[in-house]
């Protein structure tokens, strides 16, 4: 079955009939070719597929796209450009906060919420708040450093 749904992705309106079984992750990657958002586990366990939905970090693998009527989706493609990186993107580069890079878009989209979270005010608290984003390369200390720098300076 297909159903009509309308939502925005990085400001662009998507208004289309989609297979009701499609997750937001699959629509982003397969239909819209926004492949910055990664599929790790496809079951809510790794965080690689994190995007913002109405400003809140969300796992796109556990959302039916059909359920996003009227929502605003922001993906890693929407936060910065190669010549104008988002401070978090710049900080991840500066702090070497990745190795293979597979988890990185998810880490950054998740960190977007954490930099504004008043409860995440120590390295330990940031680790706790970022625990939904696994990094199989183990870049955790550097990821936390990147986030801490943006939290304290608002920039890099």
């Amino acid at each position: 079955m297909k159903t009509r749904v309308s939502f925005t992705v990085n400001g662009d309106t998507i208004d289309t009939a989609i297979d009701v079984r499609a997750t937001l992750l699959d629509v982003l990657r397969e239909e819209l070719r926004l492949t910055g958002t990664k599929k790790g586990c496809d079951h809510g366990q790794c965080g690689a597929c994190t995007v913002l939905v109405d400003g809140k970090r969300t796992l796109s693998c556990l959302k039916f796209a059909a359920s996003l009527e009227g929502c605003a989706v922001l993906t890693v493609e929407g936060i910065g450009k190669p010549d104008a990186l988002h401070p978090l993107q710049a900080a991840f580069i500066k702090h070497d906060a990745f190795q293979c890079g597979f988890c990185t878009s998810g880490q950054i989209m998740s960190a977007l919420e954490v930099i504004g979270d008043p409860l995440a005010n120590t390295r330990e608290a940031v680790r706790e708040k970022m625990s939904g984003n696994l990094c199989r390369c183990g870049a955790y200390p550097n990821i936390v450093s990147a986030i801490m720098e943006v939290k304290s300076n608002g920039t890099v």
Partner: protein
Amino acid sequence: MEPFEFVRAAGIQDVLVAIRRPGSRILAGGTSLVDLMKLGVETPSTVVDINALPLSMISVEGDALTIGALASNSDVAVHPAIEQHAPAVGQALLSGASGQIRNAATVGGNLLQRTRCTYFRARDWPCNKREPGSGCAAIDGINMGHAVLGTSRSCIAVHPSDLAVALLAVDAYVHLASVAGERRIAIGEFYCQPGDIPSRETVIGPDELITKVEIPITNLNATSSYLKLRGRASYEFASASVATAILRDGDIVIDAAVAVGGLGTVPWRNRTAEKLLIGKQLTQESILAFCDALFAPASATPSNAYKLALARGAIHRTLRGGAEW
């Protein structure tokens, strides 16, 4: 994934009518349902999206705190009224899942999330809960995460919700609506132990919607707290958890509520055992007597017996304010 029909409900009446269709399932945050549909464990013929319903309020009404079924786990966790009147609820939510999942997860969905038993989640194993009569692969299988309380010969799956344990300690009510009307059920009577029918997990009917959860505002509930012990420091289900609320007159306990999680086939509480604490000081001796009574009906396997020691430790730690035992 099996095909299904998708209904985007505009109002409560829409939902109540749509969920009367056999094989229908409500979709809230989707963090449990979508996962299980991908695994082929849930195969609804109709999915009823309730996200447009006005059920995300968190408010104080008279002497009760009311939380709408669609309030997100994140919003509830940090709401000032929750912190003031039922801190265990906020702490339990913050200890659960991850920031991303808590944003999407709703209160209603959290209460009705299915067990994380690996055999339940994998269709190639026998599982009485998923396929009644097929057997239970966990009883003689890998069961270090399984239940030690409320088990049966049919199923030993542990109830996964942290929220439900905290709600049990604060004597919350679940409000339900159907075309036939509304009703309210004490959370202590909401979950069913597996017995011979592990597929039946709650008393909620297939045509009922959870509309809200109600928490009485009491001095006891305001003292509540939640401690969760698990195999990782974060982003892990409980190995053992405890929600406690204690009112004291000087040193003497005058009211007590202790619910445990990660241990039972349902969130677990024993009011008779709690009476052993009333009129006593919280000493090693009184807490031991309480734990002995609470865990008297426990039945562990060689690989999950550690949970009982863990739970005793957690209870001591919370009741004695962190003191060693």
